[in-house]
């Protein structure tokens, strides 16, 4: 018997609550996607879960920089994000992109802040007539 198709937003809200409660939801999400044949939507599910977490005060931010960030820089960024979004918990997913030259690019579920030198150079190049 076919089950009713679950709303992605509702699933994300449920999984966000589970994550905040400290439970691992990876297997549940994988099972759901395989069972409902929605594996192609995994990226959308992740994004929705992150948005649901952000709505609950847990902010996951992707941070890209040209070199490894020091702990005090991470603290600065975390404080900034808390202040800017009102989140109570901020978790950073950091990765290094040497082509960024300098600065940092921060991506949250609903915002993007790019202060890298690469971005500024791209803006300069884009100002060509």
């Amino acid at each position, binding site marked *: 018997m076919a089950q009713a198709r679950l709303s992605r937003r509702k699933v994300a809200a449920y999984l966000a609550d589970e994550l905040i409660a400290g439970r691992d939801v990876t297997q549940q999400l994988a099972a759901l996607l395989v069972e409902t044949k929605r594996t192609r939507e995994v990226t959308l599910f992740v994004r929705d879960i992150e948005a649901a977490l952000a709505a609950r005060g847990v902010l996951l931010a992707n941070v890209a*920089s*040209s*070199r490894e*960030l*020091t702990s*005090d*820089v991470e603290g*600065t*960024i975390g404080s*900034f994000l808390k*202040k*800017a979004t009102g989140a109570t918990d901020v978790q950073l997913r950091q990765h290094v992109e040497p082509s960024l*030259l*300098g*600065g*940092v690019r921060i991506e949250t579920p609903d915002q993007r*802040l790019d*202060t890298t*030198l690469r971005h500024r*150079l791209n803006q*300069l*190049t884009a*100002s*060509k*007539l």
Partner: protein
Amino acid sequence: MTHPLQQFAADSSGDIFTSLGINGQMLLFQMVAFLILVFVLGKWVFPILMKAVDDRQDAINAGAKAAEEAEKKAAEAQEEVAKLLKEARTEAKDIVATAKDEATAMIADSESKAKTRADKIVKDAHEQLEKDVIAARKALHNDTIEMVALATEKVVGKTVNDSVDKKIIADAVKEQA
């Protein structure tokens, strides 16, 4: 010697006609002959002569009249020719004046057209020049930006270290806060 007057006085003692050597009969005969001659001439010769003279006179008069008429006609013809010449000259003057006016108008029109075309050529040249200058400025601007970007990238890639990067991030966060 006897004087001629004395001789005449000696001979005048007889008839006077005789004294004068005139024959009366002969005189009469000559008078009759003369009258006959006058009559004949008056009857047949003089009329012919007079007629010839009159005809000649008429011919002369006719010739004179014809000559006079011819002269009159010649004068009239000359006047007509003069009139025609005057009219022709006037018409020629008008034609020349009209031709001059038309030529002047054509020259003025040509000058106006040439000036308009020259102005348009100059204007187009200016516009094209301005476009070229703008295009050159754009190309220079773009090339400069490209070079600045490349140079900045090269310089920044070598000069940014951990401390500089940290300061850049801190400044950016501070600016956004």
